[in-house]
C-alpha cells in the first residue's frame, strides 16, 4: 500500500504539471484571440496562407445599381459574420478628407456617414462599388476611397486572389495579415513602395491607388 501511495502522489504531481502547462497554453491561445481582432492570427507573425478561410464580401439583396456583378463564389464561412456586420455597424476607411468608403462597398460624402459608420445608402452622394476615376486596365484609381469601393465589388475576387497569391509569394506581411475582403482592400489601395520611383516621386501621380497589381506594371521606366 505504501507503494500505491507513492504512485498516487507522483501521478498527482504529473497531473498538476500537465494542467499548469495546458492552462498556460490555452491562455496564450486567448491572447492570440485578441490579436485576431487586429487582423492576423497566431503568434509570431503568422502570415495567412491560402488555405486559411477568408471572409469575402458578398453582394446582399439590396445591391442596387452600382455593383450588380454577380457575386463571386461563396466565401469560406464568412457569410454569417457578414450579415451581423450589416445589421450593426460598419468599418470604414476613416481617413478621408471628404469621402468615406465603408465595408459594404459604399462610398459617400462624410456628411452621409451614419452613426453606425456605414454610408447612408440612400444618400445622393452614396455609390456602391464605385469605380469613379479608376482605370480598369491598370486597376488603379485617382481617389483612395473609390479604389476601396471598386475593390469591394464581389466580382474583383479573382483579381484579389491574384493579389493574395502574389503577396504570398513575396511574403508581403501587410497583405498576408489581413483577415477579410475589406481589410485587404484598405491595405491594397494604399500607396506603397510599389507606387514610387526614385523613392520620392510617384510613378503615377494621378492614379496612385491600386487594387490590383499596381502602377509599376505599366509605367515604370527606369533607366
Amino acid at each position, binding site marked *: 500500500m505504501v507503494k500505491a501511495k507513492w504512485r498516487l502522489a507522483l501521478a498527482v504531481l504529473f497531473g498538476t504539471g500537465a494542467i499548469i502547462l495546458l492552462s498556460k497554453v490555452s491562455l496564450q491561445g486567448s491572447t492570440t484571440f485578441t490579436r485576431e481582432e487586429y487582423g492576423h492570427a497566431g503568434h509570431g507573425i*503568422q502570415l495567412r496562407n491560402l488555405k486559411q478561410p477568408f471572409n469575402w464580401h458578398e453582394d446582399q439583396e439590396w445591391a442596387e445599381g452600382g455593383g450588380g456583378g454577380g457575386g463571386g463564389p461563396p466565401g469560406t464561412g464568412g457569410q454569417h459574420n457578414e450579415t451581423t456586420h450589416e445589421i450593426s455597424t460598419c468599418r470604414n476607411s476613416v481617413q478621408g478628407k471628404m469621402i468615406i468608403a465603408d465595408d459594404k462597398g459604399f462610398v459617400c460624402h462624410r456628411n452621409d*456617414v451614419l*452613426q453606425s459608420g456605414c454610408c447612408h445608402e440612400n444618400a445622393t452622394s452614396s455609390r456602391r462599388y464605385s469605380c469613379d476615376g479608376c482605370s480598369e486596365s491598370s486597376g488603379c484609381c485617382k481617389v483612395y476611397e473609390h479604389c476601396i469601393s471598386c475593390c469591394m465589388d464581389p466580382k474583383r475576387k479573382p483579381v484579389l486572389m491574384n493579389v493574395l497569391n502574389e503577396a504570398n509569394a513575396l511574403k508581403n506581411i501587410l497583405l498576408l495579415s489581413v483577415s477579410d475582403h475589406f481589410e485587404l482592400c484598405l491595405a491594397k489601395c494604399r500607396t506603397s513602395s510599389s507606387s514610387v520611383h526614385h523613392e520620392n516621386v510617384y510613378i503615377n501621380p494621378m492614379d496612385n491607388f491600386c487594387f490590383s497589381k499596381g502602377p509599376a506594371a505599366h509605367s515604370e521606366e527606369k533607366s
Partner: protein
Amino acid sequence: MHTLLSHPLYHEMAAQSASSTTLSHVSTRVEVQGIAAAIMAEATSTVAAGLTRTGWVTSWGIVLCLSGWWGWVGANPSSLGAGSSPSCPSINDSFSAETVPEFRTDIVHNEFIVKFSGFYEETARKNYINAALAAFDGHGYEIIERTNPMARYPSDFDVLSVADNIISQAIESLQSHPLIKSITPQRRVTRTLKEIPVAPESSESSHPCDNPPDPLCTQQTPWTKGRRSLNFGSSFWNSVGRHSSRRLLRAVPRQITAVLQADMMWEMGITGAGVKVAIFDTGLSKTHAHFRKIRERTNWTNEKTLDDGLGHGTFVAGVIASSSECLGFAPDAEIHVFRVFTNNQVSYTSWFLDAFNYAIMKKIHVLNLSIGGPDFNDLPFVDKVWELTANRVIMVSAIGNDGPLYGTLNNPADQMDVIGVGGINFDDQIARFSSRGMTTWELPTGYGRVKPDVVTYGSAVRGSNKDGGCRSLSGTSVASPVVAGAVSLLYSGVLHRGSVINPASMKQCLMSTARRLPGVGIFEQGAGKLDLIKAYQCLNSYTPQASLSPNYIDMTECQYFWPYCTQPLYYGAMPVIVNTTIFNGMSVSGKIVEQPVWHPYQPQNGELLEVAFTYSDVIWPWSGYLAVHITVKKDGANFDGLAQGHVSLTIESPMEEGDLIPRVSNIRLPIRAKVIPTPPRAKRVLWDQYHNLRYPSGYFPRDNLRMKNDPLDWNADHIHTNFKDMYMQLRASGFFVEVLGVPFTCFDASKYGTLMIVDAEEEYFPEEISKLKRDVDNGLSVIVFADWYNVSVMKKVKFYDENTRQWWIPETGGANVPALNELLSTWGIAFGDTVLEGDFTIGDHDMFYASGTGLVRFPMDGVVITPTTLKDQGHEVLGTPTSVEENPKMPILGLYQSQGTENGGRIAVYGDSNCIDNAHLSKDCWWLLDAILEYTSAAHMPSVFLDNAGVPVKPADALPQRMDGNLLHRYSKVLQSNIGDNQHSAKILPTCPHLKWVAAHPLNRTAPSNLYKAQRLLSLNIEAPLPPYHRQELLKKSDGIGFEVDDWIGAQDSRVFGIEDHLSWTMFWIFCLLCGVCYVSYKYCRTRFRLRRRKPRLPKLMPAFPGPRNI
C-alpha cells in the same frame, strides 16, 4: 560611399561610420573629419550614436547628436556682439548681475569637502575628523550628514560645516591629519540658492512679461533702446552657458521620467497599458532586459535582422518604455518595433511607406520618428504621414539637430499634423543643436508656420543601452521619444475617453498646457516645455473643439513673438503674415464656415489695421492653417501706438458618434500690433525672396564650397531664417526690412530706398529686368550679393544620390550668375566665373571671402575694390595645378551711381554672400553692409571705399554661360523650359496677387493687457486635482502573462513562418507530458487492479516506475 554629401549633423556624430566611408571629391575633406574626431574625443559624458545618411535627397537621418559638440562654425558667440538682450531685459540682467558673483563668495564660505586618502566607514571618518579637530572640542564645526543610500558604504569624503571664526585654524588642523588628503570648498549649488535672496529659478516659472503685466514689457521694442546687439535671441543666452558657473553642479536628475513627474501617473496606476506604441528606428533586441512588452518586431530593411546594431533604436525604445534601470515613461505600453534603418544608417522612403501601411493596419496609437530630413517635397512620404494621422495615429517626430541656425526644421516634424519636438537641456534652455525657425514650405509668397510644437529634455538624457545598462545621449532624437513616451502614458490614462482622444486633441492638450520658457522665441520653443501632469488633466476634461496655435498674436511681446516684435507695422508696408495652425479635435476633417471675421476694437485703434486671410479649404488631417495678413490703413499713416482687435472664426466638422448635428467650434484670435508712422524711403529696404531657390527639391549647392558635408542650400535664404543676423543688424542700424515674395513687377519702388538681391538662384522675367531699370532711374538703389558660379565646378560637385538612385548635378552655382548678369547688363555690370576664396582686408577690416565670384565688367566711373590675396578656389576643387603665386586680381566689390536720370539710384555689387549668411558664417561683414547701405540709401560714399578703390576693370569679352542641359526649369517659377544657348523661354509673367481685405466688424471693447493669459482651451479645468483613475479598468486591459514577441524579419526570409516551429515545440512538450501522465495513470490503475487480482505480474512492470522500491 557618399558621405561627402551627407549632412554634417549625422556625419559628425557617426564617428566610426563616417570615417569608414570616406570618399573625397575634394582634398580638404580630411580637415573636416579631423575636427570632428577631435571633438568626439573631447566629449565625455555622452556617446556618439548619430547616423549619417548615404544620400541627401530623400533620405532620413536619425536625429541625434552629441551634446558636447558645438560644431556649427558660424556660432562664435564673440562675433555676435555684446549685450544682446531681449526687449524685456530686466530679468536677465538682474540674473547675471546678482547671482553669479554671489555664488562664488557665498558657497565657498563655510562648507568644505574633506577628502580622505582612502575609503572609510562613516564612524571611522567621523573619528578622524574629530581627532584632527580635537583642539575645538567638538564645537564650531559639524559633519553634514548624508542621507542618501550611499551613506551606508565606505566613502572617501565628508562635508564639513565650519563656523566662520575658526575656518582657517580648522583647515590647518585638518590638513595636518595624515589620512586627510585635501580640503576643498563646497560648491553645491543647492546650497547657494538658499543664500541668494533673489531666487533665479522664480524667473523660470513664468514669462517675465506675464505677471504683473508690465507696460514696458509689452510696449517696448528693441530698436527703441538703440541696442547694437544682434539679438541672437535665446540661442545666444543659452548656448554659451552664461550661468554655467552657477549651474555647473546642478544635479542632473537620474530619471527623465521623474523630471516630468511620470511617477505621479504611475502611482495612479497609469503605466501605458493598452497603448500600442510604434518605434520606427534601428530595431531592438527581443531579449533586452529593460522591456516588458515588446509586442512585435518587424524588419523593413534589406538586412536580415531585427536587432539593433547601433543602439539608437534601443535608446529610443528605452525612453518610451523601459521598465528597469533608466526608466521609460510607459513601461506597460505594447512596443511595436519597426526596423527601418540598417546598421549602416541607410533608409529609403519606400521602406517607410510599407512600414507605415503596416502601422496603420495594426491600429498603432502613438508612433515615434526620431528621424528627419530636409526634403519636405518628398510627396509620397508626406502624404503617407498625413494618412497615418488621418487614421488616428499620433505622430511624434524630432525637429532636427541643425540648430542654432534658423530655417533648419526637419520633415516630418515640420508637418502640421505631427508633434514636432525640440530639445532643451536640464537648465530649461533650448539645446543648441535643436533645429528652429519657421517652416519654409510657404515661401516665397507666404510665411512659415511655427515649429517646433513643444520642447522637452533632449540633452544628456539617460536611456537604455544596446547591451544592457544605461547611457546618456543628446539630440532631438532623444526629445522626441520623451514626448512619445509621455503621450503613450497620457493615452493609457484616458483610454476610457474613446474617440475624444485623437492626434488633434492630444496635440492641443500638450501645447495648451506646455510651460513657456522665458526669453525664448516662439520659433524656438513653440508652445513651450511639456508639462505631463497638466496635459493629463487637460485630456481628462477635454471637450472636442478647434483651436489655433499660436492662439493670439501680440506683435509687441518680445522675445516670444520674435520676429514680429522686432519691427512695427506702418502704412504702405508689405503685409505682415502670421501663419497660425488650426487644430481640430472634433474630427479628422473640417472646414472654416463662411469667412473669418475681423473685429477691430474701436477704443484701441483697431480700425487702423487692414486684415486679410488665407486658409485651408479643408482642415485635414485634424489640422489646417489660417494665415492672417496685416497691414495699416492709410488713415494710420501718421499714427504711433497700438492697434488691437480680434479675429473670430467658426469651424465645422461632420457629425461623429453620438451627434445629432454637425460639430461646431468658435475660435477667437486676439491681435495686437504696434503701428508707427511710415518711415522715410531711404530707411526702407526690400528683401527679394522671390528669386531665391533652394533645396528641396532641386540641387542648389552650398554657397561655401568648403562646407563639404552640407552640400545643399536648404535654409530658404530668408531674413528670418539663415539671414536672421543680417536682419537684426539692419534693424539695429535703423532700417526697416520688408520681404518681396512676388516678381519685381509687383512692388512700388518709390517707397523703398534699397532692393537687396542676395544669393539669388532664380531667373528673371524680361519684364522684371526692364521694370528694375526704370525703378533705378527713379531712385531705387540695388544691392546684389552674388556667389560662386563655375560650370566646371558645378559638374565637379555632382553626386550620386543613393536614395533616389540618380546623379545630382547642381542647377546653378551658389548664385545664378548668368541670370544676374542679364539683370545687371543695363548698367554694364557683370560677374565672372572665377571662384575666389581667401582672407583679405579692406581698410582695417579683416574679411574672408568664402567661395565667391569676381566682377568682370563694371562701369569705368564706378568704384571697385580689388583684393590681391584671393586664391582661385576653382583650381583647388577641380584639382587642376595652379601656377605659383598667381592670384587672380579681380574686383569683388563695385559701387556705381546710375547715370540715366538726375536722381537715379545706386548699384552696389559684392561677389560673396557668406559673410552675411548665418549658414556658414565664419567672419561677418556687417560693417560692409552698413557702409554699402550708407551709399545706396544716403548717397554718401564711405571713405573706406574711396581710400581703397582699385583700378577700373577691363571689360571681359565673354561672360559665364548657363550649364548645358541644366534642369533649372523644373524648379523655376520663371522658366518655361530649359534655357539652351542662352535662349530665354520665360513663362507668362504671373499677375500680381491682390489680397482681399475683409470688411471690419468693429466692437466697442478693449483687450486685456496680457493676451497670453486670456487664451486657454475652452472648458478645461487643468488646475483641479488629479482625477481618480480606475485601476480596475487598467488591470483588465493588461494581461499578466508573459508577452510573446511577434517577429517578422522581412520578405526575404523563410523564417516568416518560423512561428510554426515555435508552436510545434510547445505541442511536443505537451505531448510528452500527456504521455507521461497517461503512463503513470495506466500504471496506477494496473497496480490497483493487480493488487486485487493478479499479484504475480506486478514485479515485471514496476521497475519502470521510479518509486522507492527495494526489489
